């Protein structure tokens, strides 16, 4: 596949000179000994392995814990580029929260005819239990990870909104830490905006949305499904960095109208729960009865206003891939302005005309499951074999409602270090956003990179790697 050759490269201009944000880095790189960089790259891997920065790949019995490959060439974004992105993200996140509040209350957007009613009410991500309930501070999505791709100098698209429990922020922090340890000189030469205070901001942001009845310093805890969860490392890392308890469902119990955790001294109340457990598993009394990951009765406590759950249950309706195609309307409806960031054009396979188009053009499209994530169950038309496309077409025709399709964007590239020097690879970007009474966007984020030449799939579960992401002061 020659897609990389045609794509916009973020480091190098077509005439082989570095783009402006990369100038300082490029000069440094040119002065480096390649074998030293290769050996640094191995050091980085050892740091990650030793620290246990791993994730689990489901369905691989022999390799229960994997490292995400780290590439030591940073992805660099200029201050000007970032300001533009940040404004677009802020607008979008504000719209997401307004949309959620509306959907669970008056549903004006449906009445105005902008979104079909059945798309909401028949959607499994829509939680009737949330109707008429407003979370503390009116915030639904406390933490958002907006996936962004770039196709040109000034062309950015939002790929996904990730308003449920976005993961990966620990890699943003560990990648920066690793880079600073390995190449401190780079941080003298470049003015890179810090990301290190994320845990502090997260804790502050969560605590500021404690239930109104909470007296004194709010007690925050992180709820994890446990050590076998793919993102367990991140759950422990965040709890540790925030200085709060990391709890599992078995530690929690509803008592006296509060959610309490079993400590060595007895049961103590929790005010804010940053849960990394999906809606379905949160409360066996309300959702999946067989779940042992959640807390029986927590939804009653929540609705009584005695605990804050972040993100709020039912936020999945806003980042659903079928809803995604309506995001331009949603942004405009609630902010009264045109979206600053573009959506990727999306065909809803539930609509017969679109389905027909998608089936006829499968070789040029990316087809995704409406409720899928992590790159599982998707088809990348241009790189799939004929056989794979045929099989996928059958699945698609059988359950069209389950899919959306998008054109294969020519994602921008950033070089990675390879044995022979550097080579361009496709990347995406996930900045992290904290919502309280204000919207805070951490200047940086997680850059995921496809390690195979030409590949457009950046997901770590599919062999992608990560890079440190720099936003420069300028």
């Amino acid at each position, binding site marked *: 596949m020659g897609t990389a050759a045609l794509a916009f490269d973020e480091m190098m201009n077509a005439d082989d000179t570095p783009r402006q944000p990369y100038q300082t880095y490029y000069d440094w790189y040119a002065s480096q000994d390649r074998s030293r960089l290769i050996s640094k790259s191995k050091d980085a891997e050892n740091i990650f*392995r*030793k*620290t*246990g920065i791993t994730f689990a790949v489901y369905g691989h019995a022999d390799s229960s814990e994997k490292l995400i490959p780290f590439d030591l060439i940073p992805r660099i974004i200029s201050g000007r580029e970032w300001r533009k992105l940040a404004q677009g993200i802020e607008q979008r996140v504000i719209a997401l929260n307004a949309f959620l509040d509306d959907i669970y209350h008056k549903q004006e957007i449906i009445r105005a005819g902008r979104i079909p009613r059945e798309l909401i009410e028949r959607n499994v991500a829509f939680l009737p239990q949330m109707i008429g309930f407003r979370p503390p501070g009116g915030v639904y999505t406390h933490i958002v990870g907006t996936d962004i791709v770039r196709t040109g100098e000034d062309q950015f698209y939002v790929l996904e909104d990730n308003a449920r429990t976005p993961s990966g922020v620990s890699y943003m922090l560990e990648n920066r830490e690793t880079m600073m340890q390995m190449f401190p000189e780079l941080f003298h030469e470049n003015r890179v905006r810090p990301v290190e205070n994320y845990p502090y901001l997260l804790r502050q942001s969560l605590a500021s949305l404690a239930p109104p009845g909470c007296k004194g310093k709010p007690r925050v805890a992180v709820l994890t499904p*446990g050590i076998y969860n793919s993102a367990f490392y991140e759950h*422990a890392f965040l709890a*540790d960095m925030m200085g709060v308890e990391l*709890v599992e469902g078995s530690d929690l119990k509803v008592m006296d109208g509060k959610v309490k955790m079993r400590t*060595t*001294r007895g049961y103590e109340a929790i005010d804010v729960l940053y849960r990394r457990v999906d809606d379905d598993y949160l409360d066996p009394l309300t959702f999946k009865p067989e779940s042992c990951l959640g807390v029986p009765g927590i939804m009653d406590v929540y609705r009584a206003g005695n605990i804050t759950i972040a993100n709020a249950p039912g936020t999945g309706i806003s980042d659903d891939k079928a809803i995604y195609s309506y995001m331009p309307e949603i942004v405009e409806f609630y902010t009264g302005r045109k979206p600053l960031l573009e959506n990727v054009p999306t065909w809803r396979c539930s609509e017969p005309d679109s389905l027909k188009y998608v089936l006829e053009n499968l070789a040029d499209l990316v087809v995704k499951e409406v409720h899928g994530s992590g790159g599982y169950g998707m088809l990348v038309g241009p790189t799939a074999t004929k056989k794979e496309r045929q099989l996928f077409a059958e699945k698609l025709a059988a359950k069209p409602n389950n899919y959306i399709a998008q054109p294969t964007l020519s994602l921008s590239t950033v070089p990675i270090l390879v044995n022979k020097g550097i080579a361009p690879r496709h990347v995406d970007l996930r900045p992290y956003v904290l919502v309280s009474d204000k919207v805070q966007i951490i200047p940086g984020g997680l850059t995921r990179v496809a390690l195979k030449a030409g590949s457009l799939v950046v997901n770590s579960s599919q062999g992608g790697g990560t890079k440190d992401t720099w936003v420069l002061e300028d």
Partner: protein
Amino acid sequence: MLGRTANGLYWMFRYIERAENTARLVDAGLRMSLTRSQGVEDDWDGVLQSADVRALYNETHETLTSQDAVDFLLRERANPSSVMSSIEAARNNARMVRTALTRETWEAVNECWIELKALLAKRVKPTDLPGVIDTIKRRAGLIRGAFHGTMLRNELYNFSRIGTFIERADNTARILDVKYYVLLPAVTQVGSSMDNVQWESILRSVSAHRSYGWVYDAELKPANIADFLILNGRQPRSLAYSYEKIVSNLNYLGLEYGEKLAAHRTAEDTLASLTTGSIADIMNGGLHEFIEDFVSSNNRLGQEIADGYRFYQ
């Protein structure tokens, strides 16, 4: 702190202690099989009994050989007390309580697991055994060092220490229980080279074969060996030393929490019997009975701690 965290720390340190003790038992077993030409099966039988896995071994093995016993003790996943199973369990507990550990302690556990997983991936060749056993002991030492050097002396530390010493006391007591008969004043074979090998192997399985000579004299005497492992408060693997540590850590918890629990009483009673008793009294009352009582009260103490500090739901 969470009850589950206290439980995780307690078991993490029990398993680390267990891995190290098992490695020591293998070491002692190897030593015995080197120094004798016959009766090797009996020695490994004793080692397996000391590790409390004799019945389990029989479930999967028809015969008892040195190689199989060593493999079962070091690598067998179906043996929950094997070194590999113990390290795996310790590391799982460490992951679970990661937020309670310093980075150094966690990394020491994680690196121990990474190295041993590679080292014990295949059956260990007899020529490599001494090196492997050394590595296990060294890795356990590194964890201990990181832990002592970096952890705050608070409740986390106390639960960790209690786990270590409950396991250690249990281990030393089981070694004595299996070999108590060689320490009884017997009519036959007294002073024979046979006895010396047995006695030395007891000391060796708690790494006390050299320090014995510093405390008593070079001559091995059953009553002195029993005294050393049961009542000597300076021998770091003795029952008395272990209980002194358990009681002092429980007392810190009692002070911090402002209450004493059933566990405090049990531990103090046991410690009192170890500090006021004499080895002659214990031998007269029956060494075997004494040890049996000790093991069961040690188990009870573990249960009382788990209940009192809400380890489980």
